């Protein structure tokens, strides 16, 4: 697929990393601020789409590999269902890490406070799992669309 003009490529070089870091920020702060796993993953997926549009699918093949993204997707789904089954001693999806004092288990402070990242128990881990899954699923969708468009173009020209 043909790449776009020099202006688009320069703006992509400036903006690409910031979009990805903003997406991971939305994923990591999902239990405190608006957003969560799905929204952050969609933001990172749109960054992948930006890279693939501006540089073309042939030049960006060494940054985005379909096998690695598919592996991340399976890992995210397995992490989510393992976290769901881990609280099965009481109920399904039981929040067994909340208020335990350990990892992600601080007690939530009532009132005005600057915000503690380590509350929420198992919910940040589930946000990370859903974010990983949605990120790689959107990456695979965009890569498949790009290669399918290239394939149909080549087939119609021949």
């Amino acid at each position: 697929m043909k790449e776009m003009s020099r202006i688009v490529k320069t703006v992509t070089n400036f903006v690409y990393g910031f979009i990805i870091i903003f997406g991971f920020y939305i994923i990591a702060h999902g239990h405190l601020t608006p957003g969560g796993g799905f929204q952050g993953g969609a933001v990172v997926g749109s960054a992948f789409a930006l890279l693939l549009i501006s540089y073309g699918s042939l030049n960006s093949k060494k940054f985005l590999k379909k096998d690695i993204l598919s592996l991340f997707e399976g890992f995210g789904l397995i992490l989510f269902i393992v976290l769901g089954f881990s609280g099965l001693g009481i109920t399904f999806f039981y929040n067994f890490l909340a208020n335990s004092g350990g990892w992600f288990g601080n007690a939530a402070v009532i009132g005005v406070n600057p915000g503690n990242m380590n509350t929420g128990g198992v919910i940040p881990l589930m946000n990370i799992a859903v974010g990983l899954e949605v990120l790689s699923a959107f990456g695979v969708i965009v890569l498949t669309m790009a290669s399918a468009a290239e394939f149909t173009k080549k087939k119609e020209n021949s």
Partner: protein
Amino acid sequence: MSSFVEIIHISTLIMMIIAGFLAVIFKKLLPSIIALTVASLLLSLEFYILHAPDVAIAEAAIGAGLTMAIFIFAIRGTR
């Protein structure tokens, strides 16, 4: 205070309608897609004004980012 919010609502919706008409009117395909993306982005601003920031983030990422990417891939496939 209420009238200010209503003015922002009405102007956002009018700009959305104008962007939708432009998406139909344009003869070339790439400006038409960009007008459709502007309509989707203004819809995300409208969601944010209506106190739904979650839906606004999802709309801005999917409706304005990924939909435009997939339409551009489709156009490049047909050319």
